[in-house]
């Protein structure tokens, strides 16, 4: 009997410590990734990275200025496409919903969110690149924009729902129409959450590489306008990392450092703002 009790106590202690070890491994991986990237990336980073174009193979130096601008343009386009649709869709679900239709929309939104990003790339390719017969900033923006829609919908719905019902009732008691109540009372009340949601959404698609490979493609030079192939930071990391040259690898580390710093900074700030809510859309 005592042996059995001792055994149970030992199992208890061993298993509980094992779960702790699992946690340490998971958290340790992140610390390791961050540490390694920051040390290596910071070493390779210099001012030229932000101001110069990539140099031809064999020359040293150069930067990724065109890729930084390219990424910014693609993300801007994605925001213009994804956020309004997502936000309005979220308003529908939160304010007009409650029907079977909205349940269907929610479910489909979640499914769309789970579609692999490479498939989204094919989608943008077939509807834009295949029609125009050339790669463009536009196509990359559409690919990422479509990817932003599901998260934009779910996060706007969530933040709008968090606004107390009494605010809506108060506005309508003062004679406001429903739409007026939404635009002048509910949306402003949820503003902080809505903007944080957009920032997190942007941070997620900012690192997407797969949908850009065959939509915005790549470019060693500047890409004026929206109609030409453009370089983008994540694609550059990919190309340079698998390339055979040491100088490329250095550039890839630097680009990885810049990208990860931006993505994590946005995530940390957004999660701190949302910390009290305890739940983040992903």
């Amino acid at each position: 009997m005592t042996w059995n009790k001792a055994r149970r106590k030992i199992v208890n202690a061993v298993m509980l410590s094992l779960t702790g070890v699992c946690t340490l491994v998971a958290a340790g991986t992140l610390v390791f990734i961050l540490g390694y990237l920051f040390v290596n990336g910071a070493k390779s980073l210099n001012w030229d990275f932000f101001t110069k174009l990539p140099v031809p193979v064999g020359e040293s130096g150069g930067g990724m200025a065109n890729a930084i601008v390219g990424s910014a343009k693609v993300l801007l386009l994605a925001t213009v496409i994804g956020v309004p649709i997502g936000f309005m869709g979220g308003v529908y679900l939160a304010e007009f919903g409650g029907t079977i239709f909205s349940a269907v929309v929610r479910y489909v939104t979640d499914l769309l969110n789970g579609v692999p990003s490479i498939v989204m790339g094919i989608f943008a390719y077939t509807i834009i690149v295949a029609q125009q017969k050339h790669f463009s900033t536009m196509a990359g923006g559409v690919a990422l924009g479509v990817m932003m829609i599901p998260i934009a919908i779910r996060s706007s719905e969530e933040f709008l729902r968090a606004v107390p019902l009494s605010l809506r009732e108060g506005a309508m008691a003062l004679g406001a129409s429903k739409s007026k109540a939404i635009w002048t009372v509910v949306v402003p009340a949820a503003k902080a959450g809505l903007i944080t949601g957009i920032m997190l959404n942007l941070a997620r698609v900012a690192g997407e590489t797969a949908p850009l490979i065959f939509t915005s493609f790549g470019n060693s030079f500047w890409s004026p306008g929206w109609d030409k192939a453009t370089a983008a930071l994540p694609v550059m990391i990919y190309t340079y990392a698998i390339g055979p040259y040491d100088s490329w690898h250095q550039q890839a580390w630097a680009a990885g450092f810049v990208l990860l710093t931006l993505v994590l900074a946005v995530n940390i700030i957004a999660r701190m703002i949302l910390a009290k809510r305890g739940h983040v859309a992903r």
Partner: protein
Amino acid sequence: MSPSSTTVGDARPSFQNGGRAQSFAKRLRAGDEIAYTLTFLCAFAVILVTGLLVFELYGHSALTRQKFGWSFLVTSTWDPVQGQFGALPFIYGTAATSTLAMIISIPLGVGAAIFLAELAPPGISSGLTFLIELLAAVPSVIIGLLGVFVMIPILRTIEPGLRAVLGWTHLFDGPFYGVSIFAAGVVLSIMILPFIISISREVILAVPNDQREGALALGATRWESTWDVVVPFARKGIAGSIFLALARSLGETMAVTMVVGNDPKIGHSLFAPGYSIAAVIANEFTEATGDLYQSALIELGLVLFGVTIVINAAARLLVLTTTKKGMS
């Protein structure tokens, strides 16, 4: 979203009827009808986009679907020059890398979720969860970068040990060049770990305290209460988190492409280079000359889409039934 969201909707009849009591013209003037129509269209856009996505993938893969039929999925010759396309090596590679990733990350993830939900003091738990969720935000291409330059050298150092301990399984036969099914599986496991942990933690936290107290009152140890009572109670949600992670790992592209070796072969060794569906699309799409070649790659995309949609649909249902809140 969930049962709770429907109840919120139901609790608002006064708010909704307030608008209906007015005449159509008045509502139109006040902008209610316009707002309704506009937001409805945007919500509908999601269904439209999903429909269009299926339509485009299906339509653009017509060539290979007609030429090869179902044999596309079960033949293993991938020869763009001869116009022969069989998807089996890629399906095998995707399945093998994802299986390996699941074998590594399920025990680690569920273990960590148990620790974070049941044992760790709230402060430490939320701090660590924050850290682990940040891991989920690291872009896939950066994991790939580290995979190429950091993880593969580490795997090389543990390679002899693996052979010595698990050599009898023949899973680790042949030379190890670094890039391999094995490396891809390890990289994937790092990427899906945060999903398993954060969702499982949430469903375990949602288990009512009565369950724990009941078990402890009957004399169970902390571990027994957790493993025999709490975890079974949350099993559907945990299974859901595992399915979500699986869907993600099947569709994961960049990190896998960078470390899997990109060689369309089927072998029994995890140390051999392989290929995955997502990786072959990423690598060959831009250079796919000819409609048949492109159609084959798009059909691979269609296969990937179909599989992930089914797994996701199952996972969402599982998670919905355990946490009232569901996923967002």
